[in-house]
């Protein structure tokens, strides 16, 4: 696509945003009951879907097919117009979809991809109390009985599980195999009997994360993704590849957060302080580097073995630095913001809450420490740490 065509596309997105982005969603989405948040997220998803903006990264046959340069422009403009984020659909349109597309059967894709477009919400059931960053240590079991697997165990940190229709579930199908070789990957209907979801209150006071207790839950064998005991590889490949696409949006969103930080410092007069100006410039430089990295990662045919980890680590720690400065610059008044807009993600402008919420990115999906180990071993080829399994 030529520069001029891309400019036209940008102008079109801009017009659309001016007309469709809800004007007062930040105050309106602050402190609302969960049902209102869910309804708002689903309406906004359908609004984006009608414009062809909900799943631009999906293949054309499933309703996407937008080239990467346009996607970058789309996310840039959505961030610039401060559109609400699809926080509730994040797992369904990214993790669930990429898993189905990469490893699912035709039947599984036909069943789930259109349903996701219609608003089906997914949750990721990976982590467990004793298997967070050491995911391969997971213990939830799936025992085969005829055409069904019977699942028992406990999942935790399942974001949005209280509202989810389906779950991406990792469970151990061979307890005797080495840790990573005995795991299978399932699609689990959250309405199945035996599932108990209990929200976990987080540092921010919100309860997006949940525990999921699984007591003899019957999952049809047809809902397994990939071969039995090959779930670890499916999880690695699909989610690793996915990380790049989500970063394209997140980096642009962080740009929106940075703009709000600059506005804040302008309002308070902090821009005149040379030290603050220096810190802002340093953050702007890092943000520019991050955006370039994300664009490159998404465009790469074959990303390097640690590229996604480098981006995740750098993004999450930069998010922490930006929200940290915002918290400092916003002063005491910001500490009276006890709630943030539910649809905003990590850059709501309620700085102390955003700062707290930044740990939601340096801990999950492999902590920063785990990322550094991956980068050292896979990216630099350093000798592995002694480990079992």
């Amino acid at each position: 696509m030529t520069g001029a065509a891309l400019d036209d596309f940008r102008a079109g997105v801009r017009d659309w945003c001016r007309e469709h982005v809800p004007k007062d969603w930040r105050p309106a989405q602050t402190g609302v009951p969960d049902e209102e948040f869910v309804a708002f997220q689903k309406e906004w998803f359908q609004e984006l879907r009608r414009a062809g903006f909900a799943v631009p990264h999906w293949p054309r046959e499933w309703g996407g097919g937008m080239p990467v340069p346009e996607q970058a422009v789309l996310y840039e403009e959505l961030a610039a117009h401060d559109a609400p984020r699809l926080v509730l659909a994040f797992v369904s349109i990214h993790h669930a979809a990429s898993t189905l597309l990469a490893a699912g059967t035709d039947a599984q894709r036909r069943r789930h991809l259109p349903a996701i477009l219609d608003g089906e919400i997914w949750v990721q059931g990976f982590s467990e109390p004793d298997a967070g960053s050491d995911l391969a240590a997971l213990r939830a079991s799936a025992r085969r009985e005829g055409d069904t697997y019977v699942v028992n165990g406990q999942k935790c940190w399942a974001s949005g599980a209280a509202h989810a229709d389906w779950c991406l579930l990792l469970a151990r199908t061979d307890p005797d195999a080495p840790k990573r070789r005995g795991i299978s990957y399932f699609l689990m209907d959250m309405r199945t009997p035996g599932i108990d979801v209990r929200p976990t209150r987080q540092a921010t006071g919100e309860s997006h994360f949940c525990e999921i207790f699984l007591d003899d839950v019957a999952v049809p064998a047809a809902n397994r993704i990939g071969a039995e005991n090959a779930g670890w590889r499916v999880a690695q490949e699909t989610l690793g590849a996915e990380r790049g696409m989500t970063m394209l949006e997140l980096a642009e969103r962080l740009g929106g957060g940075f703009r709000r930080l600059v506005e804040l410092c302008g309002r308070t007069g902090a821009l005149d302080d040379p030290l603050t100006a220096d810190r802002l410039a340093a953050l702007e430089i890092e943000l520019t580097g991050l955006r370039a990295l994300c664009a490159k990662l998404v465009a790469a045919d074959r990303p390097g073995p640690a590229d996604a980890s480098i981006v995740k680590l750098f993004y999450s720690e930069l998010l922490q630095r930006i929200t940290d400065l915002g918290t400092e610059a916003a002063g005491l008044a910001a500490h009276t913001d006890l709630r943030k807009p539910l649809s905003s993600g990590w850059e709501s402008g309620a700085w102390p809450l955003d700062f707290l919420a930044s740990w939601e990115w340096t801990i999950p999906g492999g902590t920063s420490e785990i990322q550094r180990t991956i980068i050292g071993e896979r990216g630099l080829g350093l000798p592995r740490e002694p480990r079992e399994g």
Partner: protein
Amino acid sequence: MPADLSEFHDELRASASGLLAQGADWAAIAGAGWPGLEVPAAFDGADGTFAEVAVVLREIGRAAAPGPYPSVAALAIGTLDLLHPGPVRDGLLRAAVAGTAVPVVAIDAEGTEAFRLTGASGPDGARLHGSAGFVLDAPAADRVLVPALEPDGTAVVVDVDPAELTVGDRPVLDATRSLGRVAADGAAVRPESVHRFRVPDAPRRLRDRAAVAVACDSLGIAEAMLDATVAHTSVRHQFGRPVGSFQAVKHACADMLVQVTVARELVDAAVRAQADGGPDAAAASAMAKSYACTAAVEVAGKAMQLHGGMGYTWESGVHVYLKRAALNRSLFGTPAQHRARLAGRRARR
């Protein structure tokens, strides 16, 4: 980047790395055609862009190589390109491409001192006054291009024989670099030696180019130090394990890679902006200079730490890179000065 250009850059990188490993002197560098990489074919150059020069600058940093290539290719040729063509300028450009002249631009790398012309530029000529405290490669120069202001404030470049100037050595800790103080105390200037710029804002563009060139060098330094540290910590054993398997060491190396990766993106963007001459070139150069030069000091420092006692010895060579990285950080604007430029751009908006 188009695939063929990317392949060409890989070839250039490999040949530069090979030649520099053999300790290439100025004759070898000129023989390889590096001074003329971005010069039009009409002046015997290779008809490329600054992107090709940047490939060589990065390899020179990676090798911590001495010699005036950065001054000649980044600054002198950049300056000559910004001047109105003419027989004198064209001749000097050809000589620089061939390597028969080593012109050096008397830009003060600390940015504090400057030159001015006085007197009418009549038949008797004007006179040049002023000084520059830190001029990269001044001791090697056989021609000095002195940026100066005419009495009415017009920026010009005066082509001066070093014999007309006072050029003094300024030995620095970084033994791979040569700096000199250049002073003019009323040196006579012939009218044909005064060159005018063909674009506005040329002095600022030159400073940006200088900053990007140093950022390329620092990126090369950081890459070399990361490679050396990975190689060392993979084989050096302590407590019965390679030290690179210890988490603290591995995580330090991971942070080095992250810094190098981000620096590479920012430097690539700044190099592209130099080659395109787009409106973002100033901001891109400030970002690259600030980030890459800071990162190189941190990466080289971490390399010294992770090489242990051996890293601190003269023989290890790590200190060579740490000194060069620290010098680079102070050349052509400190990181804080470049960040202040970025902040100033925001304040004006």
